[in-house]
């Protein structure tokens, strides 16, 4: 059964190696990373191993990106008043 695997920092280095190992195993991959060609990297791994793969370029340093990313659309001074 193929599973869905989310890997942070997976468009280069160790993360990309781990992504490739899971794809080879038949698992679907959610790529994340800062490489500008992240979407292409995701696509090429997906095609190579015949699995579903998607890419999201997120900066992971703030908790909002994991849930309420829309909060970032609110101007910072407004956020500072409420959070």
């Amino acid at each position, binding site marked *: 059964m193929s*599973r*869905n*695997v*989310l*890997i*942070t*920092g*997976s468009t*280069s*280095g*160790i*993360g*990309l*190696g*781990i992504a*490739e*190992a*899971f794809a*080879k*195993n038949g*698992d*679907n991959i*959610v790529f*994340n*990373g800062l490489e500008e060609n992240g979407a292409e990297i995701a696509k090429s791994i997906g095609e190579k191993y015949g699995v*579903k793969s*998607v890419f*999201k370029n*997120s900066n*992971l*340093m*703030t*908790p909002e*990106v*994991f*849930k309420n*990313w829309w909060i970032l659309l609110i101007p910072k001074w407004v956020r500072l008043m409420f959070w």
Partner: protein
Amino acid sequence: MVDFAYSEMGSVDVLVNNAGIQHVAPIEDFPIEKYQQIIALNLNSVFYASKAVFKKMKDQNFGRIINVSSVHGIRASEFKSAYVTAKHGVIGLTKVLALEGAQFNVTCNAICPGYVKTPLVEGQIRDQAKAHQMSEEEVVEKVMLQKQAVKSFIPIEKLGEIAVFLAAENATTVSGSTFTLDGAWSAQ
């Protein structure tokens, strides 16, 4: 990020917390901003991402969280205060999540590699060369692999194989562990 994964895939069965950055400098010269960035990405993002998937993993009675720590999660090197602090923290968090997921077939393990030749390590070779006033070749021989008994970089494929092993359906009892692939660095 996690919402994106759920909307695109429908579930997150395996989370690999791997994203990381490095900065090498003596503590007195270590920029506070760099320290905060490294803690934010290498440690805090592991908490945020795990928190965002944990409830759903428990509800589906399956989850595998794999944290890419480092040999620097169990050993220290000079000039790496932020990185070593973050990577030690990741191992602590790994153990807590292993306990919290135990009743729900949610496991959490850490992988502790030594030096893997990645863009991050290539950058470090340049930084260390500057810090130690050596050539890059000397840094690889005398500084980087000096602590590894096995004098070669860790193959990325081996890390991938271990991650897939940890994510296996039947690996329920493998939890709360740290897997070292460090060329016997920490054996000393």
